[in-house]
Every structure is written in structure tokens, then in C-alpha cells.
């Protein structure tokens, strides 16, 4: 439980942080909330030589509506998201999700940006962001760029972030009024990674037809997974129990869970199916 030696800097500006990243390259890691990185370092699964602590950089923690987006600063703590009025009213999915992230102490430190930038399919925000069709803003030496969430996750702990880029903001399109979203994960005990987790957002038109839908899956695939076939079944349709069952079946078929102490593949596929069904129902209730 004692990490290998490392150097540490706490820059006061984003530019400084980026130039430190450029200087140290792969040997450097960004320290935000630290709730994924520090345990890995203590177990010596990760031994970065240089930590760049971004907690002193002002202007990276905010939740605001702007230009048709909900914008979340990367340093926003999970507990801020959990208790934000904007979020609670328009995106109850975040309230669902943050309550299931670890425990209050961790949520007081852990950041939304870190949860995504870590590139772990077991984290909860990636699936939520897939359902919400978010964009990730990366800031590097050349300025800002926006990355659609579908292009962000590459592989196990691998993301579209370049070595000298820092994730600085998450942008979520604000949907029309008849929209509902929901998230749930099954966990063995509080603070556990998901056995399986499902995020759903759907938008209905005036006639009750499903205009748009996003479904993201947690920890049942090497990367956070969009349940594309399930979305296609429902998009443009009046949602019925039969269609929901079909969507659930497709999601359980299309994921690739690995067997582990949480359960075998069959069990996890089954849980994906159940959760897709339940989260669609919950999102529907919230949309109406």
C-alpha cells in the first residue's frame, strides 16, 4: 500500500500543466480526484514518475447551461453533480449514477472528468455519456478540440486523449422536454464496480413515438459500449413491451462481458437484458 517514488507538481494554470505534460510525456499522469490513480499506485499497478496535480487550477469546476449544452467542468466533483439543481431537474440520470459511485467520501474528491479520462469501462459516467451523446473537450498545446463520446474510448484504459492533452469539459446536448433518462447498475456491495450497468435516454414526440434514444452499457465489454441494435429497434417506433423485450435481447447479445468473481458471462448478459428493460421503463416514465 505504499507507492513507488514519484515527483509531483501542482501548477496554477492550465498552460503550465500542459507544458509539464509535454515535458514528461508518457511518464506523467494527471492527478485530479485521485480515486482511481492513487489506489493503483499504492498497489504498484501503476508507477508514474511524475504527477501533475490540477486541483489548484481555477476554472475547471462548474455545471452550467450554455449554447444548448449542459457543460460540466472536468474537475467537478461527483458530489457537486449529485447535489446540483440543474442536473436533478433535467438529468436525473446523473443523480441515479452518482449515488452509485463508490461512497460519499470518494464522491467528495472524485471528479467527473477523471471518471471518463481514466478510460475504464467499469466506471459509470462513460455509459451515461454514451446515452446522452456527450462531447468531450480536450485542451492541449494547440488549443481545444471537441471529441464525440463515440470516438473517445479506444480500449482498456485507452482514450482519444493525446499524451499532452487534458480533458477539460464535458458537453451534453440539452434535449427537448419530452425526454427521460435513467441509470442503474448492479453491484455486489456499495462501492463495487458494476456487475452490469445500463444508461438510457429517450425522447418522445407529441404522438408518443420515440424520436431519439441512447443506450450505454457499463462493464460488460472491453470498452464502454453503445447498444446500437437496441437503439435501432426503438428509434422511430411507438414503444411497446415487445419492442423493449427485443431491445433488451439485442443488448444482452451484443455486449461481451467477461466471467469473473461477479458472475459468469451468461449471468451478466441476463442482467444486461433485465436492466435495459427496467431503464427503458424508467426513462419512459420520466419522459411522460
Amino acid at each position, binding site marked *: 500500500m505504499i507507492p513507488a*517514488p514519484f515527483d509531483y507538481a501542482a501548477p496554477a494554470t492550465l498552460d503550465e500543466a500542459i507544458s509539464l505534460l509535454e515535458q514528461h510525456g508518457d511518464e506523467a499522469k494527471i492527478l485530479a480526484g485521485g480515486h482511481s490513480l492513487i489506489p493503483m499506485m499504492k*498497489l504498484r499497478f501503476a508507477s508514474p514518475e511524475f504527477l501533475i496535480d490540477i486541483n489548484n487550477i481555477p476554472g475547471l469546476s462548474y455545471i452550467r447551461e450554455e449554447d444548448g449544452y449542459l457543460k460540466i467542468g472536468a474537475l467537478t466533483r461527483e458530489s457537486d453533480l449529485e447535489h446540483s439543481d440543474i442536473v436533478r431537474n433535467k438529468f436525473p440520470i446523473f443523480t441515479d449514477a452518482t449515488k452509485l459511485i463508490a*461512497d460519499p467520501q470518494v464522491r467528495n474528491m472524485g471528479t467527473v472528468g477523471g471518471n471518463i479520462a481514466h478510460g475504464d469501462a467499469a466506471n459509470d459516467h462513460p455509459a451515461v455519456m454514451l446515452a446522452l451523446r456527450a462531447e468531450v473537450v480536450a485542451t492541449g498545446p494547440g488549443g481545444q478540440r471537441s471529441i464525440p463520446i463515440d470516438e473517445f474510448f479506444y480500449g482498456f484504459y485507452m482514450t482519444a486523449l493525446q499524451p499532452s492533452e487534458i480533458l477539460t469539459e464535458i458537453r451534453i446536448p440539452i434535449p427537448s422536454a419530452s425526454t427521460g433518462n435513467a441509470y442503474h447498475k448492479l453491484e455486489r456491495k456499495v462501492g463495487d464496480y458494476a456487475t452490469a450497468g445500463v444508461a438510457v435516454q429517450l425522447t418522445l414526440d407529441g404522438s408518443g413515438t420515440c424520436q431519439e434514444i441512447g443506450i450505454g452499457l457499463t462493464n460488460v465489454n472491453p470498452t464502454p459500449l453503445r447498444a446500437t441494435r437496441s437503439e435501432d429497434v426503438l428509434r422511430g417506433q411507438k414503444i411497446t413491451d415487445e419492442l423493449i423485450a427485443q431491445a433488451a435481447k439485442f443488448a444482452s447479445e451484443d455486449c461481451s462481458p467477461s466471467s469473473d*468473481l461477479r*458472475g459468469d458471462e451468461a*449471468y451478466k448478459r441476463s442482467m444486461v437484458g433485465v436492466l435495459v428493460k427496467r431503464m427503458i421503463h424508467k426513462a419512459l416514465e420520466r419522459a411522460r
Partner: protein
Amino acid sequence: MNCKTSREVGGMGHSLKRKEDSRFLAGKGNYVDDVKLPGMLHMDIVRSPYAYAKIKSIDASEALKIPGVIAVVTGKDLEQYNLHWMPTLMSDTQMVLPTDTVMYQSQEVAAVIATDRYTARDGKEAVKVEYEPMKPVIDPYKSLDPEAPVLRTDKEGKTDNHIWHWEVGDKDKTSKLFEEAEVVVKEQMHIPRIHVASIETCGCVADYDKVNNHLTMYMTTQAPHAIRTVIALVAGHVGLTEEKVRVISPDIGGGFGGKVPVYPGYVIAIAVSFLVGKPIKWVEDRSENLQADSFARDYHITAEMAGTKDGKILGTRFKILADHGYTDASANPSKFPTGLFSIGTGSYDYDTAFMEADAVYTNKPPGGVAYRCSFRVTEAVHAIERITDRFALEIGKDPADLRMQNFIKKDQFPWKSPTGWEYDSGDYHAGLQKAMDTLGYWDLRKEQEEKRKRGELMGIGISTFTEIVGAGPSKDFDILGIKMFDSAEIRVHPTGKAIARFGTKSQGQGHETTYAQIIAEELGIPAENIQVEEGDTDTAPYGLGTYASRSTPTAGAAAAMAARKLRDKAKKIAAHLLEVSEDDLEWEVGKFFVKGAPEKSKTIQEIVFAAYTNHPQGMEAGFEATHYYDPPNLTFPSGAYICVVDIDNETAEIKIRRFVAIDDCGNIINPMIVQGQVHGGLTQGLAPAMYEELIYDEEGNILNGTFMDYLLPTAVESPNWETGHTITPSPHHPIGAKGVGESPTVGAPPAIANAIVDALSHLGVTHMDIPITPYKVWKVLNEKGIVQ
């Protein structure tokens, strides 16, 4: 509860706030890791990645190049001083550090000594050990195969992996009964290997003073006096005889049995301090604690019950395979290799039973300690309470009715069990009735019937257990030959305030409060004026320590007896002061008064003052007493627990809707502390029932060696515990108390398991091994075609 004393005096029955808590809440506790001595060095331990391997070489050269690394100590170094082996408390043997072979994953291989904790850890990383892995023996059932390798080649003449055989009861009578009985039920059960996982891990600061040839050992131990004796036995040949050793057990952050054994780390720290002449601190990290320290349980039990079709229990038969890992490192009384498993005939009136056990070695960490369960009582209670439910299911009788039918009746106590125990007292019918009334048992049974018709899964499980604690009477109970008495020494100062010292050691039990209450009850000195001290072998009287719910039954009794000696002395002094005969005096808590003239009285404070200022001619001055209490019998707490579960018929998630726990621990010293003990114990009973198990693969690798996968339930997982009491005092205990710390840990698992099995019994499920997880239940539902 009726109290004899005022709130100000705070004797028995008062819910006094715990005296120790103010320092814990203020962060002012003093734990081993808080001990910092001048010149102190730090130790980390290189551990084996293999379950069974030859050590080809240990190369410390890179580690020794790191600035601040002082030394790397191996088994070969300790061998020069004959300190590389040590005895276990079960008279088995265990390596301190290996000279040639490692026997389990995470076994200690070498120790790195450095100037600070961080450097020690870096040094550990730099030690290169070359191993030659061998095929380990992991499955205890295969351990006795003729082709299995003999693991303990260090034991001369050992030709197999068998450790010992134990049996009790009448084998032939039991066989005959089972051949002839109308109904026989049988289940194979595994009580999983689990870990105490106390908040504080194990550690020590070994401080050897070369000039005075004296060792002070600050140590996380539940039994400081016994440990001092063990150190003297192990290290006496190098000059550390018992008077040269002082063991100090400071504040302890949870023990639960895991801090009874002597771990290699302690001995290495002593050896290194002895060799380098500096204090050595060793504190395990969480993973080391979980992976290497003594496990608990790991009993494979074949349980059988015989009875009549109308529900009369006639007999039980249990056959145990005990997996002890590399060595038998249990902490049982010497004559009881399976602990007090023989309490497993339960709370029921029948006269035929037979139990036998065989213990084996495997390539897993050694153990097993009694994790908050007296000695193997959890295993026994699980077996009897599960098989009782199985019997009820077989004959189609409600398990509550079946228990009521078979309970030992209140007027049958003292009751002689078929395995030889004499149960002191109990009222099992009252306990279960109270639990059923609290719950609304029969309404819930109706609800369950209706739910089943709708395909919903709901279950109700009962556990009506008898515990056996307070070890124990010297004719039967010893550890390494030392009888299992315990002690109290009370010194009352001239101003009427007292210090009391004990041979036990609190690890969270609240002794500083409850012992003071016992003395307050006996003498009338306010509990707040009685300072309780434990854990320093230089000052406290000798005792066997705190585990197995023995503190109140033994040291608590010693406190009352010592206080009564003082009361006898007080009476003599009072007679002298009041100028009357002792026969003319009467005691009312806190004072003696003259019969018929209550205005003529002397308070205990006046009497104590006189003991120092005006004592009668011929009487010794002072006001002190010591008592070593040798209990005449064990005590037999009991309880009736009922659990109600709802199971999601898609996800198989298990929700405990209600849990009612009615305990009978005899007279209660502090109701609030008892309730706290019960809450904690129930949560530690929930743990193995639904969450915890140490899992090993075929190569002996632990698969859940951190808290990420070794699932300790938290407040979130814990249901609302509904607690209550019946009170049946122990007739032989000076204050009628029985001990309560372990009842809930022992009683809860079968109540939960029985509830879950009950929820699935209509599908043909008769038994499930704990921990019963949603995944396990899902697999059952999947097999039965309920879920896909």
C-alpha cells in the same frame, strides 16, 4: 431493566456512555502504529507469490544498494540462532522464515529493515527471489489421497497430510438410530474460509535493550500475558526469559480472534531488534493482513438429523473435514482441537449424537482462528440450525413449530447434552415466542403463501442457537498448559477512587466501562471513579486474554469476587468505626449501616479512607484485592433470530426486509454496550452469509486478496437490526451474566441462509452453501427455468 444503583454510581443495568470513547472520538487513541521510539527502524516483508515452491536463491544485493535499507533478513539468518521455527498455540509448528520451501501464497520469505517505512517497501520490491514452483495441494478432499505429496516433510516420519482425528458422542448408538429412524435428512455444507479483517491490521514495535537485556514488545494482541509466556518459550534460549520481557498491548482496533495467534512478523521483529539493538516497527498493510494472517472457519460438514414423521428430533450426526492450511494455527483450548463444536447438538431435547472431525494440511495460509465465535461454535450452530430446517422441510412442518416442539424446556436445566456439556440455564420457548411476536410471524407466513402464487420469492429463516462461552473451568481448559482462569486486581485509593487491572484485553468491547460498572455494583464506588487498565504485562495480573466471549464470564466474575473480598474488609472496618459487631451491620450499595439504626452508617468512601488512616489494630492497612477466577462451568447464552428476505425474481438480488434478534445473555451490565455488540455481531454474521469468502484457485492463488473483491458489508448492506432480550441469569456466575459478544455472529448466518433457502424451497432447493450471493441464487433460478 431494574438497577440496584443510582445513575451516579452507575452499576449494572445502566447504559453508561463508554469511558474509552472520548479518546477514540478525539483521535487520541494510542495504537501500535502510534508508537514512535528514538532510532526506530521499519520492517517490510517479502512474501511468496507461489503456494508451494522451493526457494532456489534470495538475492538482496539490489535492495541493499538503496539508501536507507539497513538489512535483509532470511530464514538462513534466523537459523543461526535457531529462531526460524516457532510453535503454534495448538502445539503444531510454523516457519518464522523459510530456509528452503514456501508452503502458501503470501508466506513470509525475507524481511527488509530500513530507516523509514517507504524505503522498506522499496527495498522489498528490489529483493529478487528465485523459486521452483511445485504442484500444490489445495482441495482438502484430495489432501488425503495416497498420491498427494506429503506437505509437512519437516515433521519426522510424517507419511500423509492428516493432522488429527477427533470424535465425541456414542457412535454405535447413533448409527443404530439412523438405521432405524422414520426420517433421516442429510446435507453437505461448507462453512467458508473467511477473515476477521479488523480495521487495525497486525503489527508491533519490538524494542530490545541490549544493556539491560530487556525486551519491550508493543503488540496488537488479545492475550498479552500468554504471548509473553510464548516469547519466553521461543526466545528463552537466547536470554529472553519471562522476567526480561514486557508485552504492552495498547489500544486495539478490533481483534475478533485474529490477534490471538503469534505471526511470523512479530517474531522476526523481535529477532531483528535483538540482533541490531534498535526498535523495529512492523505494521502489516491491508492485503498482507487479508492474505497471510490466520483465516477462520473452512469446515466441510456432512450434517445428518434423524427424527419421527411428526417432528420429534431423535439424533444428529456430523462429520467434519477441517482444512487448516499449512499448519494448525488455531487458538483453541488444548484439549479441544475442534474448539467447542460439540455444542452442535443445539437447543433441542434429544440424547443421541455423534460427531467426528479430521484435520488436514493444504497449501493455504494457516489457521483457523475463532472469528468472534467462541471456538468453532459458528460452524456448529450453522450445521444444527440448517439441518433442523432441512428436517422441517422434509416432513412438511413449520420450522418454528418444529423448534417449539423440540426445545429443551426451562425446567430441564441444568441440562446434560449428549456430547457432555451441562447447559446452565435457558428459556428457549420464551425467546422464540418473543421473536415471533415481534415479527408477526404467522402473518408473514400467509403473505409468503400468497406471494408464491404470484411467482414472487419471499423467505423466512429461523435460528435458535445455544452458545457456549466463558472458557473455562481449569479441569478441562488450558492453552499451552496454562489454565484458562482470568484475573482482576482492585486498588482503592485513600480518597475512595480506584484503579482496577485485568488479565484480559479490550479491543472494542468497552471493558473500561463495563468492568467499572461491575465494581460499582459491588462496592458503590461510582463507575466514573474507577479507572480500568489492561494490556501491560508489567502491571496487570496474569490472565489468558479476551476472546471467545470470555471476558465477562471470567474477568468480569473476578472483578465481582475481588470487590466482594473488599466488601468483607470494609465490613470489618465499618464495625470498628461504628463500634458495633460485624453481625449488626447491613450493606446497602455504597454503605454499611447498623441494623435498625440506619442513621448510624459509614459510606464506602469513609471506610476506604479509614483503611489508610484509622484501620483496626491487627488488620493490614490499605484497600486492595486480587482474584483469579476459575469458572465452575461455562455459560450458555442463547438467542432466537428470525430473518425475512425478498428475492428479485429477475436479478436474484436478495433484500433482508426484517431481522429480529432476541438474545439471552443473562444479566446485562450495560444495555447500550450489549446492543452495540449485537449490532456489530449481526453485521459480522451477515458477512459470511451473503458476502465474504476467501477464494483460491487450483494453484493456490488467492482470487480476492483485497477489499475490492473480498466483500465486507457496510452500513448500506446492513438491514435495520431489531434487537431485544429475554433474561435468564447464569446460576453459577457471580453476577449472573453470560457473555454476548459472539452470539450474533454465531446466530445470524443460519437465520439468513434458512430464509434464502426457504424462499426457494418450493422450487426443490434444500440447501445452499454460504455465502449466498445473488449470482448463486440466479444460477439456481436459471437451472429451474425461472430466469434465462
